[in-house]
């Protein structure tokens, strides 16, 4: 697609989308957002980049295969869910600890895993569709 407006706009928008997706992911526990929506927003940003610069450029920008990303996301979600077992709790139980002022938990890592999995899944599909055509 050769559109000057799209090409120029995308340079800003993709970065914005990705940044915003991380923001949405991290704020999710207390405000609207979370891993699922964040993953979708991030994927939308890269899809936009793929439209303007081509799929191979988008793949290169991502550096890793989206399938790998999705797999690792799922593994991260699984591991952070099973970590609870070491604390003697049932699987997928939330565990919390504070580091200074920041409250951290395995729930956060679960959410990041969901983010990666959704991100990877959507991109896998869109890139494959683009390349199939």
């Amino acid at each position, binding site marked *: 697609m050769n559109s000057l407006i799209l090409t120029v706009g995308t340079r800003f928008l993709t970065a914005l989308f990705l940044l915003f997706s991380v923001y949405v992911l991290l704020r999710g526990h207390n*405000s609207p957002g979370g891993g699922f929506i964040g993953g*979708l927003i991030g994927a939308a940003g890269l899809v936009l980049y793929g439209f303007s610069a081509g799929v191979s450029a988008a793949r290169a920008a991502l550096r890793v295969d989206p399938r790998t990303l*999705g797999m690792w996301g799922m593994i991260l979600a*699984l591991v952070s869910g099973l970590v609870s077992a070491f604390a003697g709790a049932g699987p997928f139980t*939330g565990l919390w600890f504070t580091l200074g002022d920041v409250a951290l938990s395995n729930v956060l890592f679960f959410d990041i895993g969901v983010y990666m999995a959704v991100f990877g899944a959507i991109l896998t599909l*869109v890139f494959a569709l683009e390349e199939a055509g």
Partner: protein
Amino acid sequence: MTHTAAPGAHRIFGYLAALVAAGAAMLFASMLPTVLAGDTIMAEIGWAPSMGISLAFMIDGLALIFALLISGIGAFIFLYATGYMGDHPRFGRFVLYLFAFMVAMLGLVTARDLITLFLFWELTSVTSYLLIGFDHDTPRARRNALQAMLITAGGGLALLAGFILIGTAAGGYDLAVILSGPGLQDHGLYGGILVLILLGAFTKSAQVPFHVWLPNAMAAPTPVSAYLHSATMVKAGVYLLARLHPVLGGTVPWTMTLTVAGATTAVLASVLALRQTDMKQALAYTTLMALGTITMCLADSGPYALTAAMMFLIVHSLYKATLFMVVGAIDHGTGTREVARLGGLRHAMPVTVVAAVLACASMAGLPPMVGWIGKELIYAGATTMTVAPLVIVAALTANALMFAVAGIIALRPFFGAPRPTPHPAHEAPWQMLAGPVVLACLGPLVGLWAEPLLAPLVGTAVTGSLAQDRAAGLHLWAGVNLPLALSLATFALGVAIYILRARVIAGLDAVFARLPVADAAWDRGLDGFRAFAAWQTGVIQTGRLTRYMLVTFVVIAAVFVATLVRMPPMLAVSSAPSAFLWLTVGVTAAGAALSLTTASRIAAIAGLGTMGIGVAVIFIYFGAPDVATTQLMVETLAAVMFAIAALRLPAIVERRGRGRQVVHAIVAGAIGASVTITVIAISATPMDRSITTYFEENSYVLAHGLNVVNVILVDFRALDTFGEVIVVLLASFGAFTVLKRIRRSKT
């Protein structure tokens, strides 16, 4: 898989397995004092406590008899297998299968929980499938393995249903509780339970008419046959009958079914055994006879019959394991199992012949063998049973035929003039002799000292596990009585059959030539079943996506409409919607109308997008920003994907006829209208807010999150979310694979 190791390098696995089995046997033997004192050893691991299921085990008299037979004979079988086929390239795998089978059998007989029992029951079916089909290069082995699997595992399904009924009737699956309870004979479910349990037990124990698989299971290597037939697989059925005897037995249906099935099996099997010329086949049929006899004895509740069942179980295991190993040794040493081609082997196989003679004497029921005691007890039991004449005749016939078979099949190859065999006969290696010799010598040993050696354990099984007041004594000489007379009659009849064998067999052959063959009927049935499955698949799975979707949506519409008709809801729209909401609804509906009517793909995609965004606006309006954001993003990405995929296709051309358009419109309209009515009805009724309140109150307290939606997703229902993520990921990976294949086929 490659085998770089030298032939025989896997023998070590055989020795190891034999050691472990012997160790298990000693472990079980160490439990003897406790069990003989009347105690039951229990062990339990939680499994699915919410369903009242646990991985529980118990060892009482009955379980211990079986466990000792399984592990004890198992040790000899492993040793024997090492000698018999230690050079086989897949010997390691064979030992693994056989060991798994042994563990499954041990689990089965020691299970205290009915579901645990079922688990091991099916495991024995699966492992025996692997064992029978071990020579998987031959179609016959595969076919016979499948037959055994289908029959026994099919019976296993009936058994599971029966167990669940027992669990319902008795209030739990714990055998210790069920067996100490009042029994189920008067329960309303008794009829169903009996039918299902007997189906399971009869298929496993190969009672007529489910007997076809057992002789075919001879396709397995001989060590497997020896194990399956002597101590394990087929005995699982009689074990179950014995185990549940206290809670299910004693009724007229139980007594009649077991008597008739057992008697028929015993007589038919001993007749069939007489006709066989392959030694292994003949032994297979004599196993059937033993199973029939034990089943027949279990029909009754008297001490004699039940003691006879327990005794015959031990007797048969000892001599059958010996004889199978002897046949294997003959096959191994001469290259044939055809009884007509063998003779005079006593010179070449001087040790094997001793084992064979002792085992045959036990099988024929001669004193002072343990087989004699077993036979006397069967007669003693038969005279006390409900339908004594039938049982006596059946037992007499079967035992006399056994006597003849013992002579014809198992002894003649060793005596008479030597005959030329495929390769010159030679004695088996020590690994193959240890089992037969030890087990055969146990015959007279246990026979002579039955009272001190066997009576305590058998007595415990009968009085403890089978809940009898007393067990019958084990005597070589019980005085001049009816059983003794019957034994003498048996010998006379047996000798007569042996002498007249040529004429008897010819007569039998003539009769059987006219009868239908059960095995052929099985093949025809299986073919018919396959044809039916193919036909049914063709009808249901047409391969047309539009057809599947139509069926799916028709079902959904029917369910909705039927529900609404049966339970007409109260419809009340509480307040008039605002103008903004009307506008949103209008835009959404316009998008829907556009995507339905347009011939341009891009317009259709735009229409769908409009709809989705309209719905998202409605979400925002009603205060669900999370859902709205997700909806917006999904809509956007869906539009993107549609655009990529659909824009490459030509313009939309209507190919449906008028009739199908009408059908589709009706289905769509029905779903749309009924869903709308349902949603209005739901919003008109006051909501149950208990769950909402719980999440509102606890999401910050327990999960440190203010966003209830996200807290539910990642904390309270994290496992669900994880499952959904897997689905999303798998779907995209699947699409990826399909699309890659399309691209490859294009280039």
